[in-house]
Each structure stands twice: as C-alpha cells, then as structure tokens.
C-alpha cells in the first residue's frame, strides 16, 4: 500500500507536468493568435468591404489559422485542466493509500503534510475553476507551483511510513492539523491569483518588461484581486481556528497554550501578516498593489513555517521526519 502511494505521487507529478505543458502551450499559441488577430481585423475589414464590391480581394488565409490556432490553444488549455483533474485524483489516491498504509491520517511528517497542503490547493483551484472557467489561464502558474512543491516533497522530504508518536496521538491531531493543512492549502492557492494580479495590474498600467509580459494572457486584474481577497478571507478564519485549536492542544500536551516555540512564533507571524493584509485590503487609502504584496509576504511566512522551521530550528513541533 505504501509503495502504491509512492507510485501515485510519481504519476501525479507527471500529470501535473502534463497539465503545466498544456497550459504553457495554450499560452504560447495564444501569443500566435494575438499576432494574427491584430493583423486579421484589417484583412477582415477588407473582406467585409469586398463582399459587396466585386474587386478580387486577396484570399484570406489567416482567419482559418486564427480559428485553428485559437482552437488549438483552447484544446491545450482544456488538456491542461483535464490533466490537473487527473493529477488531483492521483494525488488524492496517494494520500488515501498512504493513510490506509499508516492506519492514521496522513499528516504525520513534513512529506505527508506538504502532500496534503498541495492537494487542498489543487482541489480549491478546481472548485474555483468550475465556478469561474474564465480563470483557466491561471492554471499555468498553479501547476508550476504544484510541480515544484510535490516534487520537492517526493525528492527531498520523503520518509517511510511510521506510526504517530504519542504526543501526536490525540483527536486534536485531526482537528488542529486538518485545519492548518486546509488553511495552508487555500493560502497556497491564494498566492497564485495574488502574483497574477501583481503582474497583470502592472501589465494593464502599460509595463512591458519581463514579469509583466507574462500576464498578457491572464484574466483582468480586478477579478484576480477579488479572487485573491475571497480566498484569503476564506482561509484566514480557518487558520485562526487552527491556531486556537493548536493552543488548546498545546495546553493539554505541553502544559501551556502558547510558548513561542518556533512553529508557534511563525504561525503568529503569518497570522499578523495576513491580518495586516485584510486590514490593508479594507482600507481605501492603501493601494491594492500594496495590500496584495502583503498577501504574498504572508505566503512566504507560511512557506517558512512549512519548510524553514522544520529544517532550520528545533522545537516541540519537530515532527518533520528529517534528520
């Protein structure tokens, strides 16, 4: 069962790669299309005018190309979405088999934790995509993040299955860790539209230097910004609850609700930064760009807590499984 789970992870990574390539192809073909499309209206005008006047207009080979290339781009994008869905199913299968093999929730170490967080991220993405198909082009960035994180988990963080240490053997394990994982997954997904918005808003303001040009194909900045806020507003109370649940558990396990253990300290930092984001977002005098940067900063603190604290510091939350 454990080996099966490992295989599922490998195939999930491959499927994410396929999805990423699909989205990238859509991006690339999209560029071709715009080049043609910018040229096409002129010809179409000629064609439209020439419909009445019997002057032989130049045969217009480009509209079919436009259609075909647009159709291809769309197809590539849909393949990307399909591959993401397949990858998500494989990802879930990997988690379930891992949990079955270990006979517990698969959140016992950093490997399993990252695997679950990324799954929540991709599941949230698919839900949002279901409701708002126009956001499809964000998929390139999302699948990129997924490939990076899941591959890191597989290559760097992998540990064999072991049962939980007694300190983790509590129903608070399920309550605290599941909510932390869930909130982290939404924050992980939330950073995608946040970065997308930062690039896109720069692009919409006429910036044509490197990172902004990537945003050419992205949905409108305002929509990305609203999605960013919605995701963070959704995740923040869950994160707050998770931290409170952690404090209740810490009181029972370690005798104090809060002890500034490195993990607790970084959870505090993340909470404060995200609270700062929500305040900045709600204040009209703060520019949306500034607010969104705060959200990105918040995600960096979450990453720091996910990887950095386990690797660099020792504390009571040392369940990473790496030595």
């Amino acid at each position, binding site marked *: 069962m454990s080996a099966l789970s490992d295989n599922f992870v490998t195939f999930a990574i491959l499927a994410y790669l396929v999805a990423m390539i699909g989205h990238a192809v859509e991006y690339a073909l999209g560029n071709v299309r715009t080049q043609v499309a910018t040229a096409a209206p002129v010809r179409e005008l000629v064609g439209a005018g020439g419909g009445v006047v019997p002057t032989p207009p130049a045969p217009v080979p480009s509209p079919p190309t436009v259609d075909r290339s647009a159709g291809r781009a769309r197809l590539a994008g849909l393949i990307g979405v399909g591959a993401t869905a397949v990858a998500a199913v494989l990802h879930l299968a990997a988690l379930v088999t891992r949990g079955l093999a270990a006979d517990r929730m698969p959140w016992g170490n950093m490997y399993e934790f990252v695997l679950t967080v990324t799954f929540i991220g991709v599941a949230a993405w698919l839900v949002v995509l279901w409701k708002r198909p126009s956001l499809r082009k964000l998929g390139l960035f999302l699948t990129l993040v997924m490939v990076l994180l899941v591959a890191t988990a597989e290559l760097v963080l992998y540990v064999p299955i072991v049962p939980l240490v007694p300190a983790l053997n509590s129903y608070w394990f399920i309550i605290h860790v599941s909510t932390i994982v869930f909130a982290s997954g939404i924050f992980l997904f939330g950073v995608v539209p946040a970065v997308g918005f930062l690039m896109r808003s720069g692009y919409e303001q006429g910036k044509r230097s490197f990172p902004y040009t990537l945003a050419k194909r992205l949905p409108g900045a305002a929509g990305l910004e609203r999605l960013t806020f919605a995701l963070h507003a959704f995740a*923040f109370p869950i994160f707050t609850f998770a931290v409170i649940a952690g404090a209740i558990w810490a009181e029972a396990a370690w005798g104090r609700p809060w002890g500034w253990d490195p993990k607790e300290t970084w959870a505090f930092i993340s909470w*404060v930064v995200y609270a700062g984001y929500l305040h900045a977002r709600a204040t009209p*005098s703060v520019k949306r760009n500034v607010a969104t940067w705060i959200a990105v900063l918040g995600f960096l603190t979450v990453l720091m807590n996910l990887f950095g604290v386990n690797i660099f510091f020792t504390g009571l939350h040392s369940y990473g499984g790496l030595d």
Partner: protein
Amino acid sequence: MTVVDDRPETAAPAPRRRPNRLLALLRNSWRQLTSMRTALILLFLLAIAAIPGSVLPQRGISPEKVNEYFVDHPDWAPRLDRIGAFEVFGSVWFSAIYLLLFTSLIGCITPRLRDHVRTLRSRPPAAPKRMARLPQHTVLPAPPGGAAAIAEVLRKRRWRVEVRGDEVSAEKGYLKETGNLLFHTSLIAVLIGVALGSWYGWSGNRLLVAGADKAFCNTRQQYAEAKLGPQVDSADLPRFCLRLDDFEARFLASGQPEFFNATVTVDGPDEPTRSADFSVNSPLRLKDASVYLLGHGYAPVIRYTDRFGNSQISDDPFLTTGDMGLTSEGLAAFPDANVDPATGQRAPDQQMAFTGIYLPTAPEQAPFVRSQYPTERNPALNLVAYRGNLGLDAGIPGSVYQLDQRQVRAGKVKEVGTKLLRKGETWKLDDGTTVEFLGTERYVTLSIRHDPGSTMLLVSCGVLLVGLMGSLFGKRRRVFFRVVPADPGEGSPTSGSSLMEVGGLPRTDYPGFADEFTQLVAAVSGAERAGDGADSAERAGVREGAE
C-alpha cells in the same frame, strides 16, 4: 480598524478659539496613533520583532541553548543579551510594540463602538432624492399593497425597515460591524487573559521516582525549578501530594514511543485521596493545578556498603541524554559513607560517589555507551567510582545529577575504578567496600501548572472567531423603495397603477450585491403576484450602475 468608510460622517471639529499647542500636539499624536496606517506599521513591526524569537535561543524555552550560544559566540552573545534578544517576547521593545498596537486598537474601536451603538438604535435613513445615482437602480410596477406590502416582504427577509409615507428604507448587515468590534474587543480580552495567567499563575517542574517514600508534595521547596507569578505567594500553592505507583511505556520495534501512562495516588488537604491515570495529551486535572507528563526515565538503585559494613542506597534519577534508547547519565553520591559507627566521626576524604551511564538495552559488546532500545532488555550500568571530598558540605550549590568537577580538578576527589554492572551484580572496590546494582525504578518528569487566565483565554478566542467570521462575511447594505404614481403619458402597460423606484447601496465591498438586489426586487414586485416577479424584474432591465 477595518472599513473606514463605514463610519458615519462626523462633522469636522469646530475651530477652537484658543488653540492650546500642547493639546493640539496630543490630539494629533493620538490621531496618528489610532490611524490605520500606524496600526498596519505596528502590525508589521510586531511580525518582524517576533522573528529573532525563533532564530535565537530563548531563555524561557531552552535556557541551556542560550548558555551554549554564549559559549559559541562569546563576543556577540553579551551584546545581544543587553538588547533582550534572548527574551524577545518579554523584552521592552516587543512589549512596547504590542502595547502601542493595543492602544491604537482601543483608540480606534472606542469611537466605533459608540457609533455602532448609535447606528443600532437609529432607523435606516431616508431615501435619497435621486435614486438613479445609487449603484443599483431600477423602476418597476409597484405591488398592490404599496409601501406597506414592500415593507412586509423586506421584514420577512430580516431587513431593518423604516416606512416614511411612500418611501421605504431598509438596511441589513449590521453584523459586520458587530463582528468587527467583537473581534477587536476579544483581542484585548486575550491579552488580559494572558496577563492574568502570568500574574496569578505558577508552574514548576520536577522528577518523580516511583515508590511510596518518593512522594512529592506541592510546596515551593519540593521543586527543582518553580516560577510563581508576581501575585502568587508560596503559601498560596494548593496543598496536595503525588505518589507515582506505576508507569507504563510501550515502544515500537524502532524504539519510537507509542504509548505512555502514569498511575499516581493523589492525596492531600486540598484533594480527595484517589488513584488517577494520566498521560501525554491528557494531563491530570486537579482543583487548582494541572499535572503534565513531559518525560520519563530510569533511576538505578545502587547500594554501597562501606568499610564499616554500613549500607546506603541511592536511587536518584539518571537523566536521559535524548537518544532513542534512553541512555541515561547520573550520579549516585554517598557523602555519609565511611562514617565510623563507633565514634560517629566523619571522614571527609572518604566520601564515595559513582557517576554512571545506564543502558536499558546494552549492546552485546563494548563500547557500552549507548543503549539500543528504550525498555530494559539487557540493562547494564557503567559506573565510575570516585573517592574523596565531594564538596557537598561546602554549601556551594551544585547539581545533584553531576559530580562537582571542581573537586576533581582540585585533586580532592580521585577516580578509583570503572566497571560495567548487570542487574544484581556486585563490584568490590580496592578498599574492600562493595557497590551493588540492585535494579531500577521508573521516574517521570512532571510539569505542574496553574493558569487562572486560561478560561478567559478560551472564551475570548471563541468570541474572536465568531466576531472574525461576522466581520469578514457580513455585508452591510441599504435598499430604498419609493412608490410613485405611474405617469399616464408614458402609455406603459401598467398605466393607472403605481410604480416603484428602487435603489440599492452596498456599504462595504460586496461583489454579489447586484444579484441580491435583483432577487430582492423580484421578490418585492412578485409579492402579491406570485410567479412573474423575476420576469418583470428582467423586463425592467435592472441596471448595474458605475461605482
């Protein structure tokens, strides 16, 4: 601190006749402090200030690591110490940031609380004259009942409704501001809860060896280390005693712990006598204290028989060294060894001490320095014998777990031999005295604590969460209806009846307001003509205004 534009418009302060410079300065500073900008900056300072607390070792968490840091960085450590870098969360600058933040918070929510109470008691405002200017606007045939029927529909949908003649004003979503204020107020309550805990709480750590004669009673003297809050006196500690009857631990084949359980007898004036079990994650809850199981280990029982034939037993705990196999180090000291029973004369240079490493599962071959498994599969005690003046009488405080190395360096204590003992084995020393390894007792490491602020902390965290949800998901919005006679000149299909003009105003960021507005208008216009409400709303062409 959130939605600034949600505040009712307050009139600009009237120009003062005699501006007092000091007052003006104070007022401006107060305004600066309570501004959102300052609050955001303080939030970030707080986040940044917390970082060194995770990077540098902290006295409150791991004092031994702080000492290590001093050894490793002799030039940096004292400087860092001077600015409180090893006690970040109690340092002046960290406290300054959060106290300023909370002052800013109070300064911000107090006027908002006042405004909100006023809003809750006031009625929705009158409809604006030109409703077409509102973000949502539409004109439809009015329902037959007129304003009263409209108001009825709105009330059913839990709007706060005010009817003024032909006008209906309604408002909803007060929960947003209520939640917001609740959230921020409960943050203050959390801080108070923490403060209560540190003022009136106490805690102590202690090792408890199994056995009736090793019982521990909750007094200040019985703790190796105890922290009492400034408002707690030693006499305030609840009186109870604990005796460790049994300790059970199960491990996996890899040595990873799987299960712990400690059985104790609780006794004492403040507690009924009883037997109780507790474990990691489920502490023993007493009336005014909780007992937490932090660790466990072995206390080797060592009998020393001196040259006069007197036997003494040491069963002090050996401290675990942190490895999987519970390799433990400790000291068995016999300062009263070799006292002449005839004269009662002490021989200060004839005291005995044994430092040792205890291996619950010793390897098959030397070196016998590391245990291979945490349970006693092949117990062995590696002892080093010392004879001389242990320095215990000098009154210099020393660890009970380590031999005073100063005495060794001074040549007052001499090593006299080394031997590996199995359970029940006896070692005869050079002077004919014997040392015997009788077996082991289990011990547990306990943390005993009382935090009177924890209930307040828990309740305020619950309120905080509820408030947060209200604040994030509540949406304040207003709708206005005005019933006007239809203009017969227009020749509309409904001429002769009356029309209603509807306007909607989301008072907070609310992308879904247009949908809700459409639905609401449909419900109102279809109130007494069931069915075609939605159609008529569509026909009227609800238009989304530019915001």
